[in-house]
Structure formats: structure tokens, C-alpha cells
């Protein structure tokens, strides 16, 4: 099947560019209205990744930076789920990349100066390709909450940053996954750039007891939905052109 155009993005479901309570957005939000484009080849196509691009260990954050025989501090978790499109069809072979703070809430980044310690055995990033059913999984430790400069006493809920490609450049998405039951979700200015409670709910991963490994690792399930494609427009494409 030829790749079709994408359904219009629901901009009211996503955060607006400008949100006065997320201060950094004030000077980084375009003021003019976006120019709406109907999709061309430039938008419906996108990069293709394969198993040559990544290593099998890349989805295991417990091992991918640890010294031999050691492992990072923190609650051992599995994060797994499917990448689907708005038609509820799986998105296979697509690149999913994640990054996060360690269990103490500290990032391994030269710009992060939070006083929680760096974990010598934790890098904090991972990547994988979805399988033919759109399924992916990571093993990691649960990230800690951390303070950030916005209002003077703002704290980020525990979260994992997630980047997904899909099959067309117009599906490109970066978001954040939160954890069921975290009381910091409700007051976070970044979470609350999203105005619809149901949309926020889509970013909160439930505890998934069926996927835990008993006596070893607890699990959270996080499904990711990318824009859906129309499939009819190409049927009347001029052949031979």
C-alpha cells in the first residue's frame, strides 16, 4: 500500500506553544499562526531505521552503562507497550528512543547541576525498534523526581522522555511518560501545558502486574499513538507518473 496522507493533527489535544505557567515557553513560542499544509511527499515519507543502526543491549538501561557485574541503584522496572496509529494499527520497525534521570533525579548531563549524585552505573538513555506488531520494551530503573527553575518550588514528577518516529516525518513526536499514582503530576506546569485531562491521562503509564517479573522487576505499560494515515487518496493516483 502506498503511504497515505495523515489525519489532521488535533492541536487542541496537544499543548499550545505558549503557556505562561511554563516560563521558558514565553520567549520560545511562535506568535503567528502556523501555516497549514496539506501533505506532500515531504511529509508522508520519513526515515527508515534497521537493526544495523542499534545494538541489542541498547534497550536495557540496567546494563547498557553499568560496569561488569554492577547495576544502577533504584527500583527495577520494565516499560513496555505498543506504538499504534490513530487507526489502532501497530506501527512496526519504528525507532523509539528514551532518556531519563537516575533514581535520585539527576541526569548524566554536563548541564545538570542538581545535588543528587550521578550513578556510576547508569547512563540514562536507551533505544529500540518496535517489532512487527508495534511492540517495544525497555528495562531501566524508575527515575526520581527533581526540582527545576520555573516557579521557585516546582518539582517534575518522575518521568521518562520518549521520542518516536513512525513512518512519515509528520508523525515525529517527542513526549514524556509519567507513572500512575505520582502526586506531582497534578501540579507540574509542563504536564499542565496540556489542557485536556484525558490527554494528560494518555501520558500516565499504569502499573502492569501481568508484565512484572516476580521477585525481580516491576512493570509499567505505555502505549504510544501516532497520527493515522488515510488510505484512499492514493487509489486514484495517476499510474506511471
Amino acid at each position, binding site marked *: 500500500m502506498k503511504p497515505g496522507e495523515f489525519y489532521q493533527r488535533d492541536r487542541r*489535544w496537544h499543548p499550545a506553544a505558549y503557556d505562561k505557567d511554563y516560563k521558558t515557553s514565553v520567549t520560545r513560542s511562535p506568535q503567528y499562526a502556523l501555516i497549514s499544509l496539506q501533505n506532500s511527499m515531504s511529509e508522508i515519507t520519513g526515515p527508515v531505521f534497521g537493526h544495523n543502526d542499534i545494538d541489542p543491549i541498547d534497550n536495557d538501561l540496567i546494563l547498557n552503562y553499568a560496569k561488569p557485574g554492577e547495576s544502577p541503584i533504584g527500583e527495577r522496572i520494565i516499560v513496555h507497550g505498543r506504538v499504534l496509529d490513530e487507526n489502532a494499527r501497530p506501527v512496526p520497525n519504528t525507532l523509539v528512543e528514551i532518556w531519563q534521570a537516575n533514581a535520585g533525579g539527576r541526569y548524566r548531563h554536563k548541564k545538570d547541576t542538581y545535588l543528587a549524585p550521578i550513578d556510576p552505573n547508569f547512563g540514562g538513555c536507551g533505544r529500540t525498534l518496535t517489532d512487527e506488531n508495534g511492540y517495544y520494551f525497555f528495562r531501566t530503573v524508575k527515575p526520581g523526581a527533581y526540582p527545576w527553575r520555573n516557579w521557585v518550588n516546582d518539582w517534575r514528577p518522575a518521568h521518562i522522555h520518549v521520542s518516536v518516529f513512525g513512518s512519515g516525518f509528520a508523525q*515525529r513526536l517527542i513526549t514524556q511518560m509519567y507513572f500512575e499514582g505520582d502526586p506531582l503530576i497534578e501540579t507540574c506546569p509542563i504536564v499542565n501545558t496540556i489542557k485536556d485531562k484525558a490527554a494528560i491521562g494518555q501520558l500516565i503509564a499504569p502499573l502492569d502486574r501481568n508484565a512484572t517479573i516476580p521477585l525481580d522487576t516491576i512493570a509499567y505499560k505505555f502505549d504510544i499513538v501516532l497520527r493515522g494515515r488515510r488510505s484512499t487518496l492514493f487509489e486514484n493516483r495517476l499510474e506511471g507518473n
Partner: protein
Amino acid sequence: MQKLDYLKETPSQTAGPYVHIGLAPGAAGFDIYSQELGWDIAGPNAKGERIRVEGIVIDGTGSPVKDVMLEAWQANADGIYAHGEHAGEVEEGFRGWGRVITDFNTGEWGFDTIKPGPVPARGLMTGVRPAEEEEMQDAYGRGHAGLRAMAPHINLWIVARGINIGLNTRVYFSDEEEANAHDPVLNIIEWERRRQTLITKRSERDGQVVYRFDIKLQGEDETVFFDI
């Protein structure tokens, strides 16, 4: 009433200040992957003119944004994207996708690639050929002779702390005046003055072709961003 059973797209969240950890860990200050992705857009075998595109992202106070990540998506010199359905039609090693981050101190970014060719426009894709397109045919069709094409361009996607949902824009080239004048996307921008924000200036430096593309998030001459 029945319910439509479509799912809703997962809402976007800012990439935050530490996007490098996940997507360019070398820049965050550590080595973890055997290869980072996106550093080579065109590969060694690509036909076409070798160019460098560089610039800075500027916020509403006129200051450089120093924690941006940009991704580029472009066709090869024949106007073909390295998409799954075109496998084998592009040069070996041509991916057409790249990822760059800004210098933490200056906000400067840049990538080396090849200049893309014209790409089929929307009318071609759908088989819809409005009358006014007939006269636009011919001249713009290297590799797509006789069919309407978009002027050569590179698609950009921009994320950073403070950007709640990635920004889409396009880089056009100052030395493609004729093609730009007929480009269907540039032409839907009602304000002609704003079209200029998408057209990069060509120059040469040490024998290399360099296009400068400064992106303004706000203010006078705010760059045109698209809802694609």
C-alpha cells in the same frame, strides 16, 4: 449513536533541556552507543552538490537558543526520499535524515549534506491537476519532467526546552529563484515578506558552499512554521 473508534494521538511534551542524553549522548558528555544516529545525512555516494546548512535559533528576546535539537529530512538530488517504498532508488548510504544540536556556548548549528532536487508536489500525488498547474509544468521537473514539483527544500523539525510541540519549517535556497517563485508551499504563505524567512542565502567559504538559515521563534521576521 455509534462511536468512532479512532485513537487519539499521544500528546506532545517538551524535549526539555537534556534532550542530548537520549538523542546525542556524546554531546551530553558520555559515550554509550556504538553509533549515534543522524550525523551523516547524504552518505559518501550521493550525487549532487555538497553543501553546508548552518544557522542559529533566536528567541523572542533576540538571544540564541543554545539547547535546541534539529532534525532534517530531505530528498536526494533526483528529488527522491529514502522512504521504504523507494528502497533501492536512492544512492547506497543516502538516508536523507539527520540530527544536529546547537553549540552550548554559541547556539550555532550546522550540517553537511547535498542539495536536494525538486520533489513532486501534492497535485501530483493525488492525481489532481488543477488547470493552473498545467502552466507550471516542465521547468521544475528534474527527474519528474512535465510534472509539477516543489522547489528544492529541506524539511526541518525543531525541539527544545520551552517548545511544547516540535516546530516544522522548510529550508529553501536563494539560488533557486525560478523554482521558489512557483513553489506551491511558498505560494500559500499569504504574506510575501514572510516567505523570505524560509529562503537561505548562498555563500562560499573556503571553497565550500554554505547556506545560512537563522530561525527566529518570535518577533520581527518570525520564521514561518507549518502545521503539517
